[in-house]
């Protein structure tokens, strides 16, 4: 059975695995140089990266690949696993040898699933290890508009255990969908669509609920303010919302709302809050608010009890959150596999 599984799976496996191994080799070769740069340049490391050509590209590749692999694994390894047998009728050949369907599925699912976890794990390990100096420098406060803290949604899903969890989930989903729709192409398309959708929606709808974020009330000031949301005509604009920095380097902010002294969220701030807004960009005609006026404005906000209610995940919760998201998707994968084991015992002539 192990031989048969490999015989049927080897082409798909080698295609995906060779891409990943190639990427891992490139990362393994360039990684030590990057780490060396970080040790040597210390605080100027990120600034210096802008002068490089290869490393920024590899950084991008290291974000894209871990997102690409799970849908590919689900659609091209998972979906055809049973669907192709059902479509070509070969299930009636193989299920009538001296081996039960469940054992057949157990070997197929086990080996192929292990392959999916292994190659994704290898890729994620390489990417995580390679980008560690960059992530470290960013979390230490080095400024960049290219490199994101690894807690940010885009980078978070391309590091550590999360891609492995997604791959396991995508694979199990592909198998289950294939078993239900019984058509390879349909199963492949459905799996691809669902996995991508989950990847897009997970940071908004799943990740924030996996752990309790740090919950704080901050006083807005000229220093920590990061944005104003205005509404109304330019001459008579009102401030709807203020956004502030969480004050925690490398953290991922989930929530930021202005509340009044009773703690209720405000939909629009008082008229005078316009004074807090920074100078408009040059060329836009508007009376300039001086720094003194801004400081006074922020002071008045503070005095009248306006606070910023912020929730965020701090940088040091990275691995705790990684484990939880990994566990969540692994649990989904187990549930989907359980469904497949249940379904395959039923009629499938």
């Amino acid at each position, binding site marked *: 059975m192990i*031989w048969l599984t490999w015989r049927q799976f080897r082409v798909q496996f080698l295609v995906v695995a060779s891409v990943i191994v190639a990427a891992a080799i490139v990362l393994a070769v360039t990684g030590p140089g990057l780490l060396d740069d970080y040790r040597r340049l210390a605080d100027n490391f990120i600034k210096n990266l802008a002068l490089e050509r290869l490393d920024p590209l590899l950084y991008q590749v290291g974000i894209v690949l871990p997102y690409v692999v799970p849908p590919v694994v689900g659609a091209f390894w998972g979906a055809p696993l049973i669907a192709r047998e059902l479509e*070509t*009728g*070969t299930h*009636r*050949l193989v299920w009538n*040898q*001296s081996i039960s369907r469940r054992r057949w599925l157990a070997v197929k699912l086990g080996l192929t699933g292990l392959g999916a976890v292994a190659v994704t794990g290898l890729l994620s390990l390489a990417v995580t290890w390679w980008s560690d100096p960059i992530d470290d420098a960013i979390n230490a406060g080095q400024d960049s508009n290219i490199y994101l803290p690894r807690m940010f949604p885009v980078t978070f899903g391309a590091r550590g255990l999360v891609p492995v969890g997604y791959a396991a989930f995508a694979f199990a989903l592909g198998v289950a969908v294939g078993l239900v729709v019984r058509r390879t192409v349909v199963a492949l398309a459905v799996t691809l669509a669902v996995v991508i959708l989950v990847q897009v929606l997970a940071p908004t709808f799943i990740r924030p609920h996996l752990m309790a974020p740090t919950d704080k009330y901050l006083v807005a000031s000229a220093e920590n303010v990061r944005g104003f949301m205005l509404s109304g005509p330019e001459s008579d604009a009102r401030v709807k919302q203020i956004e502030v920095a969480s004050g925690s380097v490398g953290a991922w902010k989930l929530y930021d709302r202005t509340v009044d002294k009773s703690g209720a969220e405000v939909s629009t701030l008082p008229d005078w809050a316009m004074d807090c807004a920074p100078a408009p960009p040059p060329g836009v005609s508007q009376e300039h608010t001086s720094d003194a006026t801004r400081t006074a404005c922020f002071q008045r906000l503070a005095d009248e009890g306006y606070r910023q209610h912020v929730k965020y995940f701090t940088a040091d919760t990275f691995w705790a959150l990684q484990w939880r998201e990994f566990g969540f998707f692994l649990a989904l994968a187990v549930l989907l596999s359980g469904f497949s084991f249940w379904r395959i015992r039923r*009629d499938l002539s």
Partner: protein
Amino acid sequence: MNTVLQAHGLGKKYGRRWALTDCDLEVPAGHVVGLVGPNGAGKSTLLNLAVGMLTPSAGTVEVLGAPAGAQQAKVGYVAQDTPTYARLSIADHLRLGRRLNPAWDESLAQRRIQHLKLDPKQRAGKLSGGQRAQLALTLGLAKRPELLILDEPVAALDPLARREFLQDLMEAVAEQELSVLLSSHLVSDVERACDYLIVLVDSRVQVSGEIDTLLATHFRLTGPRRDQKDLPRDQHVVTASHTDRQSTYLIRTGQPILDPAWTVTQLTLEDLVLAYMGRDVQPERPVLEVQR
């Protein structure tokens, strides 16, 4: 162990439609059983129930004394359209059989492939329909089952390949101690290969038994017009047709036919099968004859 297949009140429902109803069967071991019936009569359903690919909606089915599907190693199955892995070679298929069957007979498999003059390196997808069926049969036989079930194995083959396939099957049956259950919608296949017959029409078993016995107990009676209820009680009417002056009955009976008014004719197997297949349209027949 005397019965290979035993069914009690067996039924299978797809959605609201019964594909098989009230099936009671007892097939003794050591026979080559032909399961005949028109397309869609439920032949595949019955065979799929017997190998455990389907689960019964009603009743029970036992194969070789155990619930269907419980003894996979003892039951070989050549499925409809003889599926094989198109991208695997013949040698790969034999390897598959060897790996997945404890009682695999490698020398038998090799002998058959040689005898068929097939190249082991050839992919199954490149084989002709007849060769593919032979490959599937090889897998089924080399598994060394006690019962080999074949679902319309020759349906897609040309007459020559059909004959060769059945001949090979017969040779294997003679060599191995093997019971065979094969379905077909052609009586000629059954006539050539089988010694036991099951006729399945409209999801019901119409008749089953050893072919010799069936032929010895079925007769065509032709004579002056006579009502069905005037026939002796031990004569079971299968079909009846009448003209103004003449009646023709096809009957089953274990007793000699004594009435001198009848001209008694022996039936061929085809007559017998067609009679049972045609039975369901019987109520319409008198109407047609009146119009004539």
